[in-house]
């Protein structure tokens, strides 16, 4: 079955105003969403990325430049990713529409190219 990556985009500053109660509801909705995916055999894995901007490498050989990626001043960073199995894009989108990340950011769905 084809695999899809769910790339979670978010604005780091967005959580500043969220209340404890709202955060708990988000955790609970993640639990429900994740369990639902796992029970139906669609969940493959998920990884949170560490909270910093990473490194940007540009240029080859002598022209290589390495810079720190922006984080706190960035409007948008990738916070993590999930890998799911679905029949096709429509199916992948249907599984993703309840993803709680959508309450605080946006999700990019990309199919993994496999022979």
């Amino acid at each position, binding site marked *: 079955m084809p695999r899809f990556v769910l790339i979670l985009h978010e604005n780091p500053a967005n*959580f*500043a*105003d*969220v*209340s*404890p*109660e*709202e*955060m*708990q509801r*988000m*955790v*609970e909705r*993640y*639990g429900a969403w*994740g*369990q639902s995916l*796992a*029970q139906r055999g669609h*969940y493959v894995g*998920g*990884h*949170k990325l560490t*909270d910093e901007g990473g490194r940007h490498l540009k240029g080859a050989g002598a022209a290589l430049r390495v810079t720190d990626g922006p984080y706190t001043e960035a409007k948008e960073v990738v*916070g*993590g990713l999930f890998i799911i199995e679905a029949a096709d894009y429509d199916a992948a989108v249907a599984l993703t529409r309840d993803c*709680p990340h959508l309450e605080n950011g946006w999700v990019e769905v990309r199919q993994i190219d496999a022979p």
Partner: protein
Amino acid sequence: MTAADVAPLVDHLFRREAGRLVARLARRFGVARLDVVEDAVQDALVQACRTWPFAGVPRDPAAWIATAATNRALDLLRTTQRRSRLLGGDAGAPDDAHDPLLAAPGAPPPEPPDPAELGDDELALLFACAHPALSSETAVILMLKTVGGFGVREIARGLLAEPTAIAQRLVRARRTLAEQRVPLAIPDAAEAAPRVQAVGEALYLMFTEGHSAAEADAVIRADLCHEALRLALAVADHPRLGAPDVDALVALMAFTAARLDTRVDDAGVPVLLAEQDRARWDRALVGLGMARLERSMRATRLTRWHVEAEIAAIHALAPTFDALPWARLVEAYDRLLLVAPSPVVRVNRAVALAFVAGPRAALDALDEAGADQRLARYPWWHAARAHAHERLGERHRALEAWEAALALTASEPHRRFIVARLAALGGGD
């Protein structure tokens, strides 16, 4: 997040743990660092919210959050120390190794097993919020944010204010606490009585705010009422601070909270007391009210909370609206006027009087109360007069009074109610 069983989180766990941790860390690091402590706790919850979806909910969520919050607080405080040393060039300042506050945490003190109960740290913070240097309104906001674990936007919705205004008041309140060096401690016997009174007044105000208008955001308003009740219970049950008038306050809140679900229908329109479905009143809360009302009788002094609790009890215990002992209610309002005279109490008394002595007597009482100019801006005075005029068949005067009430009403559900009354009378537009 795997297919493994994820135990459901206890209701309001994050909110309660936020309150508990802010209280504990504030007591440890000092009231002057309250803002840093609040940030640390918020950051810990954000960490949980962003990590648990991937790693799963830990077996002991509260402990995980506590550790994260403590570590984060230490980080933030070390940074602040380092920065002020760099900027101030203070060669004599102690470094981390010597600052006892920043030493490694060690085992946290044991917490009460029931997450709904307040520990001593939280009570200490509660009393600090009601410090004489802060107004009751500010105390409410600070209590909700620190001990209550509410967010700024939630508080703003509950109090019908702007979030920026709430945030500003919090900044000023924290600064006041720091400047006054308010101790985070449960008041000793010598000053307990006035301090308990101050906390009680703030909690009464918190409850009133939650109860006042049946606005669209019914959930947060109910949360305010329940939080006020929870905090009042904690004070009432404290072996040293508990007193009969706090029991009266708890009783008053419990009886009133029992009716919360039935005050507004599904469309958000207020339901008259006469039409509320009494079967849906919360029996457990009525029971709590009864138990605390009885305990409050130990008092040697009658307070306004006692009388208000009695009035609330009369309402809660009447099997039907028609069975209400209105003469007893009028008499209770008479007593309330003795301990806490106010034009609003006179209005409530007049409404009860209508059932005993008829609408004309009620109107006379309302007009007498109206000598206090403040009532001209109080929509319920006009509404009570409108009701009385209606019952007397004085349609024109009733319309005028309803129009006056409408002009003073900002609450959307109440506006809808009055517009419906106007339409029923064949007036209005």
